[in-house]
């Protein structure tokens, strides 16, 4: 218990009901007036700080596509139409939409198993992505990668990995190539808070910093790694601190706030393109579902989940658009268009044929291998 006690001593009780399941991370404590999990120092932006209207519409368009896709995936899996491993992204839409709105199509992305939001935000066409999730030949990777291994170089999505934290060193390699080629590209590398406890995170950030690589480490801090709350397994009070410890420009931001997230992303992109090197962005967010579809989130205090859902970033962003005089019908048109894209993509994924079995002989090496 001493180990646990030490870990929890940095925590404050979420309410007075006591018990380890009833604690929330201190970093969220000061989050009073805010949407979603809070972070120290982050304040709601005044309207004047709001990203410009077109940018917010762009972010909303991406985020809504993600939200609707996530809902549809969960429906279809639930209905037995798709039998695939799926890591829900509901709640984290704004983080990646704002990040990807700040980069170009040619810029690189490295992401993880929970990557649907990143991949859609970066622009992989829904049909190709859905077909890959379903293991079909028409998928981005001919059905040989699947949900955890999405690659689509056309939109800069170079690696999706199922190994926690391992994309970080690879992102460095992509960024190194850009640095040597002077092609002006940046690499965005997404991962969770849990990944910062992996050795590759520390090795990777150190190398990126000493080589001043044009890479952005985007930690989407949803406060849980699988079933483990951040404070239980992470020695520092924030992920930002870890970046600072490695000498890296590091910022913490409310990732659920589109304007704040976009501003942080934009700054990091400009910093990298100017040759100054990497930035670690700790984007505070939350996931509204289990780690894996089917997980009931029993380890997340009910009140914490309820609060997070009350602070759902999607209706907030939608309201922001209305406040900026985007008409209800314009927004509805975006939503309808996204719905149609998803309808088409999901049907395509269901109808498309599987790859032939002996497809396994191709792409192992540069030549077809023997049976």
């Amino acid at each position, binding site marked *: 218990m001493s180990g646990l006690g030490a870990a929890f001593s940095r925590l404050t009780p979420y309410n007075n009901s006591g018990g380890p399941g009833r604690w929330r991370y201190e970093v969220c404590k000061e989050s009073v007036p805010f949407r979603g999990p809070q972070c120290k120092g982050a304040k709601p932006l005044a309207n004047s700080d709001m990203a410009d209207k077109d940018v917010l519409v762009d972010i909303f368009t991406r985020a809504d596509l993600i939200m609707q896709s996530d809902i549809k995936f969960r429906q279809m899996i639930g209905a037995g139409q798709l039998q695939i491993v799926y890591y829900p992204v509901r709640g984290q839409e704004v983080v990646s939409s704002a990040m990807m709105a700040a980069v170009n199509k040619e810029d*690189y992305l*490295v992401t993880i198993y929970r990557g649907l939001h990143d991949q859609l935000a970066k622009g992989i066409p829904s049909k190709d992505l859905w077909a890959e999730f379903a293991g079909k030949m028409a*998928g*981005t*990777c*001919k*059905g*040989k*990668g699947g949900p955890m*291994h999405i*690659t*689509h*170089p056309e939109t800069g999505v*170079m*690696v999706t*990995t199922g*190994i926690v934290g*391992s994309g*970080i*060193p*690879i*992102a*460095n*390699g*992509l*960024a*190194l*190539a*850009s640095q*040597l*080629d002077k092609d002006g590209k940046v*690499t965005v590398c997404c991962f969770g808070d849990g990944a910062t406890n992996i*050795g*590759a995170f520390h*090795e*990777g950030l*150190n*190398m990126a910093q*000493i*080589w001043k690589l044009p890479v952005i480490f985007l930690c989407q801090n949803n406060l849980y790694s699988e079933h483990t709350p951040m404070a239980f397994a992470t020695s520092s009070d924030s992920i930002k601190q870890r970046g600072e410890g490695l000498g890296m420009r590091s910022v913490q931001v409310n990732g659920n706030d589109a304007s704040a997230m976009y501003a942080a992303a934009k700054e990091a992109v400009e910093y990298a393109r100017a040759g100054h090197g990497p930035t670690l962005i700790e984007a505070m967010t939350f996931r509204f579902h289990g780690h894996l579809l089917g997980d009931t989130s029993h380890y997340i205090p009910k009140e914490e989940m309820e609060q997070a859902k009350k602070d759902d970033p999607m209706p907030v962003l939608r309201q922001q658009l209305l406040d900026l005089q985007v008409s209800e019908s314009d927004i509805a048109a975006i939503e309808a268009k996204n719905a149609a894209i998803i309808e088409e993509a999901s049907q395509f994924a269901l109808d498309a044929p599987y790859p032939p079995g002996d497809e396994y002989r*191709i*792409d*192992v*090496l*540069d030549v077809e*291998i023997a049976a």
Partner: protein
Amino acid sequence: MSDTAEKPKEIMFAQACNMALAKAMADDPKVILMGEDIADEQGGGVFKVTLGLSERFGTDRVRSTPISEQAIVGAAVGSAMVGYKPVAEIMLMNFITVAMDQIVNHAAKLRFMSGGQTTVPLTIRTTTGAGTGLGGQHSDMLEAWLAHVPGLKVVAASNPADAYGLLYSSIMDPNPVIFIENTPGYFVKGPAPAPDHVVPLGKASVPREGTDITLIGYGSSISRCHGAADNLAKDGISCEIVDLRTIAPFDEETVLKSVAKTRAAVVVHEAVRNFGVGAEISSRIHEELFSELKAPVGRVGSGYAPVPFSPAIEKAWMFNQDDVEREVHKILG
């Protein structure tokens, strides 16, 4: 060739690797090197294999790194995916354990998992080998681990000329290649290759022809196969030697052709015998040539123990020429 002046110039194995790196870098500006202490300012590598290269090609292309094996291999994987031909040096093969995720989960699989959209033409150079008194954590031969992973090529040269030709081919190969050098063998000399000498990957050589039995090996085991063959010849036994050069994928055709002729074989390697490369090769020979064999294929490898420190135990643990000869006598009755 009695005249000394006509004798081919001899070079050391380490020198051959250096020359191959220099040629590859000169031929292709996309070849870059990464590793601990490899630039000249840091000494040109602990075994001097990269000496002079940063001076010639600059530290952008010859990059000394922190002690970060995962980050080194990861940077090689990432840059390889977008047009570079990185050569990552892992100082000693045992440190590959630290980078296994990058090698096995990423370098080896990204081509496949992306449906061929991305490729990873990297080379990982590393060195290992017992006989140096470095003990358990600096001398392991781990090639069987790597050969077991689909998507990786594994290469080990047995002489300087082959090292030159194979390393160049490894760097230019569109697949991830693990190039294993032999630490005690770095200073062994052999005939110098011609500058344009290239050895294709996946092709074994037959450095000695014979009729009674085939000795199959690679890397450091080949010199001991030659020694054994010389001795066995005195007993009237004629050995053919097959030097695999590329361990994975191995040249099944050359191996089977030789064994079909001699109808007997021993696979020889320095790595621990259990679950080793010898098991795979011997099994393939049995599958294809069972009814023609004079006796089951023999295997010679090192003992089932970590590499010991004390020279006395290290010597006992490691396979040697006598073991090869004994195995041949056993097989040929």
